[in-house]
């Protein structure tokens, strides 16, 4: 108990003295702010990207792809196979018994970015069928109207419009054999489709002279729906298709990119943190140096080495956390919610609570590492010599 009281009183004394060591303290604060700010900024890419994929993948849905295709872009499902696939058990049905499945078609087109003069980019063009809105009920028209089935019309996601020119409602897009009007814009509550262009799959495929769909999106019939569906498809190997839970599909296909963002963030953040660590060590050693007389006096009065050491570490932790919070705040103010285009995927950067926890944990680790050696030195100061040091 006496130990605890000693620790508290020495730490409080030390923190009250902090303003007199403002310059050196700023080194830790600025260093941590810069390191954690950079870490947060790059991690916000990974978090935003992961969040987009998470929102797109609905565990109540499955995507059916050819067994040989890893992604929907590589998929080709012929019209012949479609009837059998849609009739498979495990797929949810509406009141009339029609299966809640929608074959989709996916393609990529080149488009001009905003503002004029920027290099062109890629945009995903997705074709849906008559069950599209039932399978994807999150799709809501916010301006104009839905495309009509069988018509050469397109609707555009609200995340795509600020990124590319020529995709406002009323604009016409150059398509195969003519111009197609954009009749509406839509939101999906922030999933991947919001950065895409959508039209009638059958019309798009006839324009593209293609005869194969890329995938079939289905609503699953209850929790065991996926298993039933997978078993049914596996029992008919001639169809050559497999079903995957949509949430797992997006998790799998985004792994490489998310991993890449993480690797960059931790490599860059790691080097920054190392720099901040050297700064923290420097500051804490000089803090101990400046307090030599004070520490010796405390020791002479009977305070333990432990209390002195803890006060040093507490100072380092406090300064680092202040710096980290500044860095997190800056990253949040500058980047949170910013739109970003990675290839044809559009998403928003996110400084999420999980990221804040990571940032604070890093700051804590650096502060402990930076405080522990100076703390040991402080605890071991020979009292008699140190008293003479003035």
């Amino acid at each position, binding site marked *: 108990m006496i130990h605890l009281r000693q620790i508290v009183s020495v730490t409080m004394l030390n923190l009250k003295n902090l303003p007199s060591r403002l310059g050196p303290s700023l080194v830790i604060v600025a*260093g941590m702010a810069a390191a954690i700010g*950079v870490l947060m900024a*790059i991690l916000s890419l990974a978090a935003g990207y992961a969040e987009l994929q998470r929102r797109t993948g609905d565990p109540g849905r499955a995507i059916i792809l050819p067994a040989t295709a890893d992604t929907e872009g590589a998929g080709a499902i012929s019209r012949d196979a479609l009837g059998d696939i849609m009739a498979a058990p495990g797929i949810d049905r509406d009141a009339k018994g029609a299966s809640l499945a929608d074959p989709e078609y996916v*393609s990529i*087109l080149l488009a001009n970015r905003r503002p004029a003069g920027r290099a062109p980019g890629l945009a995903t063009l997705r074709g849906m069928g008559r069950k599209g809105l039932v399978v994807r009920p999150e799709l809501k028209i916010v301006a104009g109207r839905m495309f009509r089935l069988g018509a050469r019309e397109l609707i555009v996601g609200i995340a795509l419009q600020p990124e590319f020119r020529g995709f406002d409602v009323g604009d016409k897009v150059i398509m*195969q054999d003519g111009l197609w009007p954009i009749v509406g814009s839509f939101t999906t509550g922030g999933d991947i489709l919001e950065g895409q262009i959508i039209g009638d799959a059958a019309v798009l495929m006839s324009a593209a002279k293609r005869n194969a769909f890329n995938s079939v999106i289905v609503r699953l019939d209850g929790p065991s729906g996926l298993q039933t569906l997978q078993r049914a498809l596996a029992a008919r190997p001639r169809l050559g298709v497999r079903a995957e839970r949509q949430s797992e599909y997006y998790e799998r296909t985004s792994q*490489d990119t998310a991993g890449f963002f993480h690797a960059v963030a931790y490599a860059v953040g790691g080097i920054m943190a190392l720099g901040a660590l050297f*700064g923290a060590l420097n500051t804490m050693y000089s803090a101990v140096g400046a307090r030599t007389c004070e520490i010796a006096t405390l020791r002479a009065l009977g305070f333990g080495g432990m209390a002195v050491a803890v006060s040093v570490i507490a100072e380092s932790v406090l300064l680092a956390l202040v710096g980290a919070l500044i860095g997190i705040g800056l990253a949040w103010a500058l980047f949170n919610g910013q739109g970003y285009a990675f290839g044809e995927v559009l998403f928003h950067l996110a400084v999420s609570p999980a990221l804040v926890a990571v940032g604070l944990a890093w700051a804590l680790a650096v502060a402990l590492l930076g405080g522990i050696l100076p703390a040991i030195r402080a605890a071991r100061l020979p009292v008699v010599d140190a008293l003479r040091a003035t």
Partner: protein
Amino acid sequence: MRYFPLIWAALWRKPLRTILTFLAAVAAFTLFGLAIGLNATYSGMIARARADRVYINPHFLEFGFLTRAQRDRIARMTEVREIGVSDFFLGYYRDPKNEVVPWFLDQGMRRAYPELPLTPAQWDQLQANPSGVFLDDHTAARLGLKAGDNMPVLTAAPSRQDGSRLWPFHVLGVFENPPWARGGLTLANYDYYDRTRPLAQAGHVGQLTILLKDRGDAAAFTDRIDRTFASSPNPTFAVTDKATEQNGAIARFNIPLVTQGVSAAGLFMILFLIANAIAQSVRERVAEFAVLKTLGFSDAGVMTLVFAEAAVPCLLGALAGFAIATALASKIAGLSALQKMAVAPPTLTLGVLAIAFAFAALVAFAGAAMPAWRIRRLDIASALRR
């Protein structure tokens, strides 16, 4: 130079402080080197782009295509000096891991894309041997092939008239990998490809490469091409070479923004460190500076001492950071994850080192400005009394 012993002595007065400052500078400049080196890579790519070159792509990358008829029509346009035809497919050699992307070129590419590292004799050889290919040394090493070897390539879907998926290429020669083609090059014969693929696809063209007579025309020309072929079965999307290279640089990441942000954060971090270290050092040695001034050192002289004391760990840190960044860059160049993401590794040119030195000096100068000013204004009499 005669100041050097003084600076050296000052630096080693508190060795721990100097070493920690140096190490922090090393960390900051390692990042700085990697970031600015990455910038150098991409600005090099953009600078390499020719102002008089335009590429014409199908508007729909997946299902679209251009035709020989379009090529002939464009070739007759008055702006066009050279026009080349190319196409490609994805296949593999022996094992699906060994991806091969043959780039089929017609003889027009000889002049429309003179950067291609084939000699005139090799171009003639390619024309005379339809199923021959030239590989760069990276690709040849990856596939374990040399000149004279057979190189059967399988495609995912049937891609030949006879319904087969197998293309029996053979290697005509190996050339040195040009740095602009990091992914490697497999150069093949377009006429052979066109003759051999399914009849329904005969005469299709993947991309047209054009050199213009007048280099000022490129942007207007791309607009004209796209307008001409809108509402046709084969709408085009023409882009200038500059825009294509910029696309590589910023479509995936806004490289300049990210690299400048990271570099600035690193410099900001050490700015405080340097400023604090030099301020402390000067504060501890006020009497020493007073003695120097008494001995006749000029104001400029003592200020130089202060600046130099701040600059030495910074400049050495910049040098060491540059060396580490160079080593790291050559390590990460080989990472498959980076190649998958089509991110080029940083190029640590002497220009990058010069920029690093300039910023190191700037940080040292900014950090030491206040203490140096204090020493200049130092009142000798009162300082000596302390």
